């Protein structure tokens, strides 16, 4: 698999039946993805696999040995620094437990839809529960990040 841009070969067969969430946290030391419910309902373990946001508690390592996987730790390198900064600027983070999953869902959306509307953001986040803060701040942060990425790209062109 390719994990945050790094090629990983020879994952031992005895780990193939491990949940991707456990593999990331215990074998790779990537503790951004959190276990909330362990049954795909809360979204705090959301990672991006081949461009799609999925809950890593419902994926087994052996299923994704040929996949490109991105965790919250790889977001900035994937061009999503603006998204992370916008979450800070908009004070969209309180306890933080859900945030790695929320960021991954938002980043996967922005990769597909550079300028999403509120409805698209709401749909992208329908599998991510946050009980602290206001989802409105997530929407504002995603709009800010989309705007900044557009400006950056215009500047580079």
């Amino acid at each position, binding site marked *: 698999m390719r994990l945050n841009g790094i090629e990983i070969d020879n994952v031992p067969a*005895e*780990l*193939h*039946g*491990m*949940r991707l969430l*456990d593999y990331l946290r215990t074998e790779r030391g990537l503790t951004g993805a959190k276990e909330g419910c*362990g*049954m*795909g*309902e809360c*979204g705090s373990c*959301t990672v991006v*696999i081949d461009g*799609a*946001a*999925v*809950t890593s*508690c*419902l*994926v*087994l*390592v*052996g*299923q994704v*040995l*040929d996949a490109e996987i991105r965790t919250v730790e790889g977001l900035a390198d994937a061009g999503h620094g603006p998204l992370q900064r916008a979450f800070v600027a908009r004070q969209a983070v309180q306890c933080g437990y859900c945030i790695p999953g929320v960021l991954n*869902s938002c980043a996967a959306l922005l990769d597909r839809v550079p300028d999403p509307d509120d409805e698209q953001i709401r*749909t*992208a*986040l*329908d*599998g*991510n529960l946050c009980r602290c803060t206001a989802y409105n701040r997530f929407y504002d942060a995603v709009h800010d990040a989309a705007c900044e990425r557009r400006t950056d790209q215009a500047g580079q062109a």
Partner: protein
Amino acid sequence: MSATPPTLLRPASATDVTGLLRDGRAICGGTDLLVQWRAGAPVAAMIDLTAIRASIPVLEETAAGDLRISALHPLTEVTSALGEELVPLRESVAVFASTTIRNRATLGGNLANGSPAADTVPPLLVLGAVIDVVTPDGGTRAVPLADFLLGPGRVQLDEQEWIRTVTIPASARGCGRPGGGFRKIGGRAAQAISFLSLAWQWRVAADGTLTDVRLAMGAVAPTVVRLTAVENLLEGSLPGPDLIDAAAAAVDEDIRPIDDLRASAAYRRRCAAGLVREALGAPAHHATRDER
């Protein structure tokens, strides 16, 4: 903390699957099986079918004009490939669980699970779907969905068989909007297992007459059921207020809801009538003074 990981085998091709299912459960999206496993369902080995996707198109059109849909690809990839086709199926996927689950879950898993509340099953039933089952000898058998569904958690799929594709006959295509749709009632918009659900499709003649009327309801009987009494009323008719009232009343004959942890039978009967009204373009319910 999770249980000891099962052995996971990942056959590279359909022929390699043969034999492996004798000792293991098929897994693909895993969004149901891994939840069951975590809850304690014994699974010694899992046979992962995701590598076989490479040999199956997400969607192909046969020479006869049938649509053959992969049972192994994630639902989001299926609906992207469908474009404007098969409105009831696309509308059901739009309200299926959540984005993260839709990016993983498959038609094959939703069918094999055999839940009376499975959201993709009512639309597939109104679309006349045929399930393409791969048998242990490497052949396939085509099972009409109505025959495939046996009861709660039971489908016509032997232990060593798996679902490769789902075929929608050409005759079910082209109804478009407003001739089809899907509605569900659940505890909330996302991640809800349906209290009940309704898929419908028909053709609307120039004068408004309905033909090829098909409706199917989920979570109101041991399997998803066609609403034949409602269909017979509507077929060849022009919907008006009286007919809509009659259709909403007729649904009572078609369903056998039970009280369970999600909803009562009485609530399901009221909602069933309301969904039939909505499908016909009427408000779900006119509250009487006593109910306000």
